[in-house]
């Protein structure tokens, strides 16, 4: 990124090729609408290009890129925030305590599991989905997720726990 800020366009192309899929999937899984994902994908890169002079090498490039995308998504979510109902939350909490032999996902086919995982991700609350995707898609640790989302380490852990519980519940139904 420093090379690009100095005028090296090839350096930017390398960065782009490396992170384009990761960013796009992160956006698409969160926004669920391809048009929205396309719009925020381009807007994220535009913000990054405009702010190239302010990049500091102390931060990982992927963290910086995802932070920009996350901020844009938060703005979008604030305009159309999905809320989990109390009943959905209760179902998740019950499944957390269910015996492993009674977990229904074991009997499902792999195809059905992938479909349900997709549905589970779409149904996750925004903060839990972001934390889960930052972990599972981008491979970020708790601290990096906290840096991007502006949350503390324990808060990130809590969001990940709730996300796991909801996904398990969705896979069981």
């Amino acid at each position, binding site marked *: 990124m420093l090379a690009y800020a100095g005028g090296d366009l090839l350096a930017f192309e390398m960065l782009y090729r490396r992170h384009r899929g990761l960013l796009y999937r992160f956006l698409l899984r969160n926004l669920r609408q391809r048009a929205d994902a396309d719009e925020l994908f381009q807007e994220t890169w535009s913000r990054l290009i405009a702010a190239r002079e302010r990049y500091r090498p102390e931060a990982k490039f992927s963290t910086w890129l995802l932070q920009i995308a996350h901020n844009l998504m938060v703005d979008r979510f604030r305009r159309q925030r999905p809320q989990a109902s109390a009943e959905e939350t209760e179902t998740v909490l019950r499944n957390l*305590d269910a*015996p492993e032999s009674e977990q229904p996902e074991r009997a499902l086919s792999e195809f059905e599991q992938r479909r349900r995982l997709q549905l589970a991700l779409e149904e996750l609350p925004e903060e839990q989905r972001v934390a889960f995707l930052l*972990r599972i898609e981008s491979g970020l640790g708790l601290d990096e997720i906290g840096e991007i989302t502006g949350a503390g380490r324990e808060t990130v852990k809590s969001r990940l726990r709730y996300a796991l519980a909801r996904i*398990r519940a969705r896979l069981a139904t």
Partner: protein
Amino acid sequence: MSTPRKPDDELERLLADDGGELGALYRRLPRMEPPRRLDRNVLNEAARAIHGRPPRRQRWLVGLGSAAGIVLAAGVAWHVGQDALQQPGYERARNAPTYVPVQPIDPSARRKQTNAPASADAVSPHPAPTAAPAAPAAPIEYQHSRSAQIVDRLKKETTARSPPPLPPPSIATPPPPPAPARQSDPFFSAENADSAASAAGAAKAEAKGDLAGSAAREKESAAGTDASAARAEKPARSATGPAPTTSAELRRDMQLAPQDWLAHIQQLLRQGRRQQAIESLQLFRRAHPDWQLSDDLRALSD
């Protein structure tokens, strides 16, 4: 009997390098990629940011630069205009009166000028433009003929009205400017010629105004009544009618005794100089308002 699933254990597996079983399941999901058009848009924007136009947030600099350029151009244009105004050629051209070169009226003076044009140029404070010396020839002839006609007409009128030559009184109209001075200036304008012709009439009118004023003063001293002043206005207004005779003649008439003045008027009538007789009689009535006129003179004055 199975043990409940521990959330922390699942979290630990999720945070492992491979993401646990959920990580494995997630990696089997379709891996979507951004469309090509997005790649082109982003890469083009990155290239423009480096090589092309400035970023959007710096567009105000472009506007500021444009405004500064306009102000600078306006300032330079203003200074250039000021410099042009301060150049001596422009000042001379701007302040120079518009002279129309004409030939002198007097034929003798014209002959003199044609004989010595160089000396006339040397005397003239406004030398003729050298760019087109032969071009004003036609206007000169036109202006000269026009002014000459006016002056000739005035001369004829004066000659027709004026009595036989008499010795000029001391208070006569000042003589016209010396002819050589005007003849030496080949650029005597037609406008000045007209004004010169009209100046002769104006001088006469002024002299007659002086006469009217002096007559009124004399009448006031003689009668001392307001009615006489009102009567005195009538001849003053009538002075704007037919062309009067010369002020020298009228002033000479005023110096005569009343009986002699009336006899002189009668003589003018006998000589057929009726207009001059009327003017002299009007002046007589202003000077002597209580004088009993004969019937024929009273009818003439009314």
